[in-house]
Structures are given as C-alpha cells and as structure tokens.
C-alpha cells in the first residue's frame, strides 16, 4: 500500500475545489493557485517517479481500497512503466497549459483589439482543468478496470465544458459531437466490462487477476470488440476520427493540447494494456484488420491534413496520422514497435502540444485560424516563427527530435515483426514510411504559407512572443530536443512493461531482430 497515487489524485481536485470557492473577482488569484497546484503535482510526481524501479514489480506504488463490494469493485491504483510515463506527460502538460491559457477565459483580443471570445468565468475554467488533471492521473493509474472505466467516461465532462463554453464559433456542435461519439464508444465498452466480469467469474475487476481469465476465443473476440471500438473512437482511428478535427479546432488551444495530448492517449493506452493483455487470442486474430486501419489512418490523415485551410484542423489531422503510427506499433506484435508506440504516446504529447500552443499564440494575435490570413510572420515575430518551426519539425518527426525515435522504432519494429510471417506487416511498414514524405509537405507548406513570404498587412501589427508565452514553449522544445538525442530514460522505464505485456500476449519481445525475416 503506497499513498503516492491517491495523494497525486487528491491534490489537483482539492485545488479545484479551492479555486471554485474563491470569492468573486479573484481571477488572478485563481490562476496563480491553479498554477501552483499543478506545479506541486508535477513535483510530487517527479519525487514518486524517482522511486520507480524499472525492473521491479510490474505494478508499483500499488494501493487498494474496497469501494463497491456489492459490485466487486476496488479502488485499485498502481503504475507500470507505460502508465508512469503517461502520468508524467499529463502532469508536465497541465502547468504548461495553465500558463498558456492564462488569458483564454478573460476574453481573447486580437492585435488590433477586436474581441474573439467573450469574457467567461475564469474560476470555472481553471477548476475544470484541475479536475481533469485528477482524472487523467486516475485513468492511467487505475488497475481496477471498473475504476478505469469510471475515469474514462467521467473525463469527458470537464473537457466537454472546456470546449463547449470556452471554445470557438462552432464550439457547441464540436463539444456535443465529441461527447456523444465518446459516450457511444463508452457504452459499448461498459457492456464488455460487465461481460468480462461475469465471464471471468473472478468476482473482481482487478486487472492483474483478470489477465488470462478469459480463455474461450469467441468470447474474447466479442469482449475485445467492445473495448477496442471505444478505444478506437478515443484514439481516434480511421474511420471514427471525424470528431477530433472539430473538437480540436473549436477547443481553446490549452484544452486542445490536453485533448489530443493526453485524453486521446487513453485510447491507445487502453489498447496496449487491456485489449492486448486481456484478450491475447482475439488481439492476434484481429491484428491484420487493425493494422490495415492504422495504415489507412496514417496515410489518409496525412493527405487530408495537406488539404486543410484551418491550422488547428490541420494539426488535428496530423495527429490522426500519428495515432495511426501508435496503433500500428501497439498491434505489430513486436517489442521494438510497441516500445516505440509507448514512447510515441509521450513524444506526440510534447510535439503536438507545442504545435497547438504555438498555433494558438499565432491565432490569438489575429483571431483567425485560417492559414490564408497569415504570411510573413517570421519577419515581425521571429521568436514565434522559430518555436513554430521547431514544433512543426517535431511534428514531421525530424531526426534529432523526440518523435523521430518513436516513429523509427514503430516502423522498423513493424517491418521486422514476425507476426503473420506473411510479411504483410512489412508492407504496412513500407506504406507507412511514405507518411515521412507527406509529413514534410503538410508541415512545411503550412509554415511557408504562414511564416514565410511577404508580410501580410494585418500581420504587421503582431508582437513577438512575450515572456509568458516563451515560458510555455521553451520547456516543451527542451523536452523535444532532449529526448530526441537521449530517449534512454523513457525507454528504460517503458521497455520492461512492454516486455510484460507481450509476454502475456506470448509474443517474442526481443529488440534483436529475427534475422533473415526480411529476405
């Protein structure tokens, strides 16, 4: 029994209550408190992570309390490597997002003083943010599947309100679409969760005890489907992706970062942990269709991204392409690919986060998300342009930046995967490598149209990034470059738990290629 995770989950929600109860008109204070709380959470997480033994038990900092005996539900938390890095990702992103959306609720003014979004309740926004943080930690930490589900669904609500009341013009359409899409998947998953409970007949939802509990392949397939559809919608995987561009484009930049950076990861995380380990046979049986879907996502997302005229939608579509890579890695049944996928979840969080925030700062200056409204920003705001460029390069996974390592691992692992010796995965890897070219096109073309060329008239008034904005982007860029050259710290934590997973699926995990499979 370790108190760490419950404490981590408690801190933000307590902060949220405090923020919500602050007296009227204490907006500034609310922001400061939020920032403080999120930083505190970050520090605590850091301290906890320092005590994590990569090659120790699968789940560490375990805590279990009885919650709903009648349903056999425990409040069970604990982290393995993958969960740990994802929690770390969340708690790193939150303070950054807080800082980034400092003025989002005050009513955003453009450079020429026109109001884009009206003034809204600051306290609500930031307490929602903190509540969301608790849930993000909880969803990754939960070892009880019921608890996981509870967070999985409950997370939607704060995000729904953040999009719906703080977003852009189409916000309510986007918010509803987001909520209903996710709810629908969630409901199917609920059926699967209940079914799992009864079919396993273990009278518990604790993940470790349920691993290998379902033997009958047919049952496995049905339950797998229930879980997978929910996760595929969350991830999002083609063809159930269309909610993401709307949600991400309408959400305030900060919320969009958490949405794409963390919430969607719950989908891929769920595939990695639950779909694979609980239903190994089904996972193997469905590998091919899923690989096909993910390859489609990769290419399709990239192509559609090229055709976007709205920056945030463009970034959203690039994410769809990247999630294709993650899913591909998860289901490639290869140690390298899966470690790559897990690493990708983190890196993508940083890269896309930086890109969304930079784009957000750009949009805040002009009040329009449309690429065509910009041009020649580099001349007036070189810093902004510089950060935008680095974030963009991370988005096209330039070697030397963190996302390259993960993308490389996913592709090379998939290529070399012996699963379905047919070499279909080899083909998949080659096709997905085409995205390397497409990525260059969509990112650089966007940069060319926004940053380069003669400076557009309304852009001339732009101010360069202020200190706050630099403090938002600098840490992300530092992480992107740092992990680009030295991903070892993350991989050392990830690899053991990936090995665990694949052992449960009973797939060879070695990072040493099976020689000669590429003939």
């Amino acid at each position: 029994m370790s108190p760490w995770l419950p404490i981590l989950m408690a801190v933000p929600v307590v902060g949220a209550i405090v923020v919500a109860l602050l007296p009227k008109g204490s907006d500034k204070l609310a922001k400061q408190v939020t920032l403080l709380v999120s930083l505190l959470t970050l520090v605590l997480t850091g301290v906890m992570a320092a005590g994590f033994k990569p090659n120790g038990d699968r789940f560490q900092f375990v805590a279990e309390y009885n919650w709903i005996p009648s349903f056999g539900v425990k409040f069970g938390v604990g982290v393995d490597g993958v969960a740990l890095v994802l929690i770390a990702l969340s708690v790193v992103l939150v303070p950054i997002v807080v800082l980034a959306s400092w003025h989002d609720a005050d009513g955003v003014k453009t450079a020429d003083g026109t109001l884009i979004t009206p003034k809204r309740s600051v306290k609500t926004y930031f307490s929602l943010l903190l509540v969301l943080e608790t849930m993000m930690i909880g969803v990754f930490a939960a070892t009880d599947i019921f608890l996981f589900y509870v967070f999985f669904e409950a997370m939607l609500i704060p995000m729904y309100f953040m999009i719906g009341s703080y977003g852009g013009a189409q916000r309510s359409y986007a918010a509803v679409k987001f909520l209903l899409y996710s709810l629908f998947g969630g409901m199917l998953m609920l059926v699967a969760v209940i079914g799992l409970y009864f079919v396993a007949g273990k009278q518990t939802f604790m993940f470790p005890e349920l691993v290998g509990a379902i033997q009958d392949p047919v049952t496995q397939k049905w339950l797998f489907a229930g879980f997978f559809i929910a996760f595929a919608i969350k991830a999002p995987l083609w063809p159930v992706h269309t909610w993401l561009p709307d949600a991400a484009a309408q959400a305030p930049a900060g919320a969009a970062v958490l949405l794409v950076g963390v919430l969607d990861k719950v989908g891929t995380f769920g595939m990695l942990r639950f779909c694979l380990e609980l239903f190994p046979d089904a996972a193997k049986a469905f590998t091919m269709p899923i690989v096909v879907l993910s390859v489609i996502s990769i290419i399709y997302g990239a192509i559609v991204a090229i055709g976007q005229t709205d920056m945030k939608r463009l970034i959203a579509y690039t994410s769809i392409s990247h999630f294709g890579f993650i899913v591909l890695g998860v289901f490639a049944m290869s140690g390298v690919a899966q470690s790559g996928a897990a690493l990708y979840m983190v890196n993508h969080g940083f890269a896309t986060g930086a890109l969304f925030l930079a784009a957000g700062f750009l949009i805040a200056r002009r009040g329009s998300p449309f690429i065509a409204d910009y041009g020649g920003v580099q001349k007036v705001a070189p810093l902004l342009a510089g950060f935008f460029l680095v974030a963009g390069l991370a988005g096209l996974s330039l070697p030397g930046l963190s996302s390259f390592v993960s993308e490389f691992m996913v592709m090379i692992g998939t290529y070399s995967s012996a699963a379905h010796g047919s070499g279909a995965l080899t083909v998949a890897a080659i096709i997905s490598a085409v995205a390397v070219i497409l990525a260059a096109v969509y990112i650089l073309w966007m940069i060319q149209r926004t940053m380069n060329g003669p400076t557009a008239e309304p852009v001339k008034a732009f101010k360069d990034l202020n200190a706050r904005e630099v403090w938002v982007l600098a840490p992300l860029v530092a992480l992107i470059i740092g992990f680009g050259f030295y991903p070892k710290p993350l991989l050392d934590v990830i690899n053991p738990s990936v090995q665990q997973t694949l052992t449960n699926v009973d797939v060879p995990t070695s990072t040493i290629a099976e020689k000669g499979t590429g003939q």
Partner: protein
Amino acid sequence: MNPAIEAPTIEYGTLAPLLVIFGAACIGVLVEAFAPRYLRKSIQVPLTLLSLAGAFALVLVQVLRGQVSTTASAMGAIAVDGPSLFIWGVILILSFVCVLLINDEGHFVASAASVPGSADEEEAERHDNGTGHTEVYPLVLFAVGGMLLFPAAHDLLMMFVALEVMSLPLYLLCGLARRRRLLSQEASMKYFLLGAFSSAFFLYGTAMVYGFAGTVSLPGINQAMAAGNTLDPLLLIGFALLGVGLLFKIGAAPFQAWKPDVYQGAPTPITALMASGTLVAAVGAVLRVFWVGLGNLDWEWRPVIWGVAALTMIVGSILAITQTEIKRMLAYSSIAHTGFLLVGVMATYGSAQQNAESLKAILFYLAIYGIATVGAFAVLTLVRDPGGEAGHLSRWAGLGKRAPVLSGVFAFFLLAFAGIPLTSGFMGKYAIFSAALNSGTQPGDSIGGWMAGLVVVGVVASAVAAFFYVRVIVLMFFSEPAADGPAIAAPSMGTVAVIAVSLLVTVGVGLYPESVLGVANDAASSLFIR
C-alpha cells in the same frame, strides 16, 4: 346451523405504516370539513409531514428490529416483505420530499370549481394568498397510501383496490394547477379516462386468471399453474390483460401515451410525485405479479417483456430528442428509464441468488432515480415566467450565466439521468445492466444471448438519450442568454431542502453507492414472499 366465522387476524404492527397514512388522510378530510380556512394549511402540512415521517419511522423499526415478516399479513392479502419495506421506505421519503414541494406557494388553484379567468376565480385567489386548495394534502396522503398498498398487495383484488386508491386522488391532483388550468384539466381528464380504461383491462384480466386458478391470491395462482396447464388461453389472456393495466401504470410502450401529456399538464410537484412515487409503486407491483404470481410462467412472459422493454427504451429516448417542453422531455426520459427498469425485470429469473441480484439492482435503481427525478422537477419549479413556470426549452437558453448554481445542479441531475460515471445514475444503470448480463450468463438460461442483445439495445438507447440531456446543457451553458430570460424565483426553505437532499444523494451515491446498495441488498436478499 352454520359454523361460527372466526375473526380475521390482522398484523397491526406490520401494517402500521399503512394504517398511519390512511388514518392521517381521514383526519385530513375531517380537518377540511371542520377547521376554519385560515387554519387548515397550518394543520394539514404538519399532519401530512408527521404522518409520512411517522410511517417511515415505523418501517425503519421493522427493518432494524430485523422482524421482516416471512408470511403474508391480513389473511394473505398484504405481503410486507423485504422488498415491500424497501419500496415503502423509498415511497415515503419521496412523497415527504414532494410534500415539501407541494407546500411551496403558487402551485395549486384557489378553487378548482371556479372557471378559469372568471370573476369568482379572482375572488378565490384574493382570499387564499397562493396557498391554494388544502384538500391537496389529504388527497396526496390517500395517493401515498395507495402507493404503499399497491406493491405490497398479495392478491389481485387488493392490488386492484390499491391501484384505484392510488390513482383516483392523482386524477384529481393533476387538475389542480394554479396556472395554465386548461392544460391541467385536460391532463386530468386524459389521465382519468385512460386510467379507468386500463384498470378495466386489469380487472378483466383478474377475472380471467380467477377463472383459471379459482383464486386471486398470487401464490394461489402460481400453485394452480404448477398444477394445471400453463398454456390455458384463459390464463394467457388474463395475464396479458393484467399486463396492460400494470404496464400502463409504469408507462411502458405501447401504453406510454398518457405520460407526456399528464406530466406536462399536472402541477409540477404532482408530476414529481407521479414520476417518482407512482413509478416506484407500480414497478414494485409489476415485480410482484410477474415473479410471485407468474413465476411458473416466465418462459412465456419474458420474451414478451423483452419486446416491451426494447420498444419502451427506443420510443422513450427517440421521441425525447425533438421535445421542446422540458417537462414533456423529462416525461419521455422517464419512459426510457421505465424501459431500463423492465430490462431488470427481465433478469428476475433463475436461481434465487440471481433473483436477489436483479431485485437489488431494480430497487437500487428505483431509489436513486426517484430522488434525482424529484430534484430535477424541484429545479423546474424555480424557473418562472410571468405566466408560470418557464416550460419551453428556448427559455432556458443561457440560464447558466444568470443562475450558474441552479443550472449547474440541474445539469448534474441531467448527467445522472444520462448515466455518466460519478453520478448515481451511472451506478443504477450499471446495476441493471450487470444484473441483466449476469442472468444472461447464468448456466441453463437459453436466452442469455437475448439478454445481451437487450443490454446492447439499452446502451445504444442511452447513448441516444444522452443527446437530449446534453442538448439542455448546451442550451443552458453554451448559448447566450435571451434578453427577457425567465426569472429565478427565490426558493422557499422547502424547495431548497428538496434540491439539496436530492443533490447530496445523487452525488453521494455516485461516489459511494455501497451506502444504498447495502440496504437494497438486505431488502432483496429476503425475496418476495411466495
């Protein structure tokens, strides 16, 4: 020379709650007859509340003493078993809360006899200052008495009587709205005619069953079935007609038609009472009839209920989408929830343990759904237009800006209805669905697949249903307020208490359902007396 008739044995202790309620009701009538007008309210309100509280206390005593009777009382006419006691408790709490709402000013007409807009209406209104008819209280008490009796009735005659005792006062109460009286009266008339119509079916069904079994006591019928041919058309027809009566009361499709109209027309506190108390009572009665009376017939009735449940969920959630009147929307949502409850009824089958499971689920669901419903209607009473409550959805636009707390609370209730985790609604939905799937995975249940199918229909329906709950939230929070938005009435202590209690329960059960589940579990574990 005929044998002496031995006096019937009545277990007064066990039946005490009933007696208290009915007694108080009669006293209330006397008060109406003899007390001067200005005193009536100040007598009726305490009387009503106290009697309800007292009855609840008596229920508690029985539970805590652990002397839950295992045999039917009053010569086998009434069965006060675990489930009954739980349902009684729930009904008493709900009606207590509803009375607090009723107690609030301006809901009830000054003189029902006066023609709307006529001089004597104004006259009457001038005399009573917003309190309205005090006959309301005894009527409510009678209705509550009927509700208590309905699920506890152990033979069909008693059930019929209870049905009427419950319904007749409600018919009247529906017609007593102070504002929009035309609607109110129309609701009252529709409810009455259709109610009478359906109860005639119920009665005819009783007759048929009696013809088959030679008795109307539920266990008797069951034994008769065990003995005789369960395919006797007499029995099947009789049962079908019984079903009509019962399903009409819980408002399952295709007998749901009255619900939206009546819920919309009736005074909101009464709507709350019907949506919570009546539903609870009726579902209790359904359970008893289907399980005690027709236990040996489930092979026949379950497929039929399957269809009814599916239809009800679908009709409820689909028709709700395009509603523009908030009370109407809630009516349809209550239809959808009836469907979910029927899914649970489906699951009361198989081993005793399994029965207890699903029974627990249903009881739990009834309790939390009832409370949340009352809370939601209580909020409704506070959002007022000059002409009364602001019923039309468009009037709710941007309410989140003008009354953030109230809208937040209402949004929370809606999320609970939608079954979002960390609300009681989710726990209820989970309980029902898991019970259903559990019975589906029972060894030897050949229609397990069907159960799974029904559950899938259920989740899809609730996904659809989520849409219109979300729609209201969108209206309240994401759209700009109208210039002449509705006013927020300063809530009375009673209303505040109602909302607070409902909210606390909804939140508390959402976070820690064990509290209520435990009780439901104890109640269910001692099954219906058979």
